[in-house]
């Protein structure tokens, strides 16, 4: 990339199953005020705000109206990306690269506890062909998981190993909704939701918010102790109808990753990337997305987890934060991937720090079965 966008600072709430005391503005103000304070900045330093939330989850048309005072948009430029948080980061980066603005406060919020997840996730399907069948996110991801496992011989145990690893990592993340030591057997014997997805293969319902400060190169250098640079960023959308693509392959992710790597000058991701924060709503996704991002051949995801390459201390730690399996709300989840990857590069990831992390990958997706994919390369630099 010719120009660089830097991440100056990040802030997260603790993710909790039901933040019953917090209204949306309270939850958002917690992170937006803190991220400024911790970086010695004021709202006056922010030229613009990019917010990130979903009308359906908030139960409110124009969900950014709810949080306007809490994200500091009074008589300021603000816009809302109604997709996964990685796409919001992408949009914030573009607005900075345009030269129109120098800085951006990005705030992502969601309280999954307030609505009905199955109903909301059923509304994502088209009203002509698919919605009437009662699909939701979980049941369609189960279709993807099954297809993937069938086509490439991925086993339920391998998926369970992902859950074991990420839930264990979650123990070291103070923001995580949950972290625990579970065994493969426990995952395998947890309640069956939709074959092959069991309770511990699936992310929990959770509430929370995440804020990031992004800035142009000049401002980021001035403001950040360790600015984190976005060196590659790309997204792609695949077809919508479930039967239109072979769900065992993620062409949109392959294309997005390839583009992002080209921008960042990466030729061998396995060698050149130190860690990955990816969107593991369900355990199988970690394996499938790793393939999509070129860390192994199609179908090679199972081996990666089996050989413990993606564990803390492995060649390529994946989701040191504990990932979405340890609990991040949808939409916010993508912003958290970027925030967690940035913390790693800043060397501020505490107990979950990957030693010497210089280059990290953040991945987010939205739409049925990972239809839309976004990949962001973050790195340390001068």
């Amino acid at each position, binding site marked *: 990339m010719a120009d660089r966008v830097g991440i100056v600072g990040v802030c997260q709430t603790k993710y909790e199953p039901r933040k019953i005391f917090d209204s949306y503005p309270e939850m958002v103000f917690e992170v937006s005020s803190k991220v400024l304070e911790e970086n010695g900045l004021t709202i006056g330093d922010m*030229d613009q705000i990019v917010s990130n939330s979903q009308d359906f989850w908030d139960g409110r048309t*124009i969900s950014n109206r709810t949080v306007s005072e809490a994200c500091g948009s009074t*008589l300021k*430029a603000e816009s*809302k990306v109604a997709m996964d948080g990685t796409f919001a980061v992408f949009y914030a980066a573009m607005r900075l690269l345009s030269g*129109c603005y120098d800085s951006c406060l990005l705030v992502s919020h969601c309280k999954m506890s307030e609505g009905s997840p199955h109903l909301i996730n059923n509304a994502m399907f088209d009203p002509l062909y698919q919605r009437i069948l009662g699909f939701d996110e979980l049941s369609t991801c189960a279709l993807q998981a099954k297809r993937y496992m069938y086509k490439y011989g991925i086993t339920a145990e391998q998926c369970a190993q992902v859950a074991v690893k990420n839930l264990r990592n979650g123990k070291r993340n103070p923001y995580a909704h949950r972290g625990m030591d579970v065994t493969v057997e426990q995952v395998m014997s947890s309640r069956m939701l939709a074959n092959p997805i069991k309770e511990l293969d699936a992310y929990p319902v959770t509430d929370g918010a995440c804020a990031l400060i992004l800035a142009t190169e000049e401002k980021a250098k001035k403001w950040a102790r360790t600015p984190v640079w976005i060196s590659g960023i790309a997204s792609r*959308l695949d077809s*919508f109808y479930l039967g239109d693509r072979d769900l065992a392959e993620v062409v949109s992710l392959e294309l997005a990753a390839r583009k992002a790597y080209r921008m960042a000058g990466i030729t061998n991701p396995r060698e050149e990337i130190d860690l990955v924060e990816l969107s593991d709503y369900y355990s199988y996704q970690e394996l499938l997305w790793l393939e999509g991002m070129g860390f192994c051949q199609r179908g090679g995801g199972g081996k990666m987890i089996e050989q413990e390459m993606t564990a803390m201390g492995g060649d390529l730690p994946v989701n040191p934060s504990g990932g979405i399996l340890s609990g991040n709300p949808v939409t916010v989840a993508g912003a958290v991937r970027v925030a967690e990857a940035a913390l790693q590069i800043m060397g501020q990831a505490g107990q979950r720090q990957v030693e010497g992390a210089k280059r990290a990958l953040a991945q987010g997706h*939205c*739409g049925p079965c990972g239809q839309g994919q976004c990949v962001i390369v973050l790195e340390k630099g001068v």
Partner: protein
Amino acid sequence: MARRSKRNVAIVATGQTDHRSKRPDVNIVEMINEAVRRCLDDAGMTIADIDAVVIGNMEHFEGIFFTEMWSVDGAGSFLKHGMKITTGGTTGSSLALAGYYHVASGLFDTVMTIGWEKQSEGETTAGLIFQADPLWERATMSGAIGSFAASATAYMHKYGITEEQAAKVAVKNRKNALNNPHAHLKLDLTVEQVLKSKMLAYPIKMLDMCPTSDGACAMIFSSEEKAKKMYQNPAWVVAGVTRHDQPFGGDLEMVMNLRTLRSATEEAYKIAGIRDPLRDLDVAELYEPCSFAELSWYEAAGLCGPGEGGKLMDSGATYMDGELPVNPSGGVLSTNCIGATAMIRVAEAAIQVMGKGGQRQVPNVNRAMATGFGGSWWSDVMILSRTP
């Protein structure tokens, strides 16, 4: 706070459906596709020329969550970068601004933006009530009309604005719509007819209010290199500004004084080098959700002083043959497919700059302004020019 972009960006094409109260002949994706094909035709492009698609609507109006995902086939975003941006009434202008930022970032050369709404498929007032705060506003909220009405009374009270002056806006814009093949309501009305139309919520009568429409609008934003190579007369984006505000209607003066538009236009004029907007602009497409609003928006946009919106209307300055024609397209009072509405303002301003306005063309347009309105009394402003 905002500046002109580092790279020049031009609008090279637009496409609209013929807006109607109901389009039972097409589904949502097909309606979007109609605008996209018209836009590609206008550009002389194929979908392969498009690098990215930015789309939006008001999701609760149709009750569909992942509209950007469902519409991939019709919008032409298959295996491309795609994004959904939704900001209520300003969705269309937020999308147009997003098209501008996408190209200005240097990451994309040719970007399509699409705003749409198929209001006949849901309940507009119910959809708008979702927009109100569940604790503080929902019980009293009656769609958009109520808050326009409640603050229009304050506007009239403070400045002596009359119902007749507002009715003139309703007459002017519907008459302008007669020249616009895409417009939904094309009516040759009298002030009398407006005043005698059914009272909805005092002082707003049926003909003071925008309709609900089914329709879509698409635009193509292009880098300077491509625009100059392929197009004789594109519309260059010379300023883009957004202003949001406090969360509750009661925090603001609403129709009486739209301060976000005041703040946004002041900044946009500064960026574009406009000193006297009434003189320096050649045409304006203002997002007027009701007749009273257009009068007040004149004031906020600096076309006249506070409280002088009625007088400016009386002077005839904003008619087709006036000093600054406002809403030659017929405006929102003639067409309102909400997610597209603010984009139509930008598209119509671009059409004027490109000289493609046909019967609604204002002669010799060098600079045009488009505004978006929505959310919690938010505003977007874009200024387009014949020269970069």
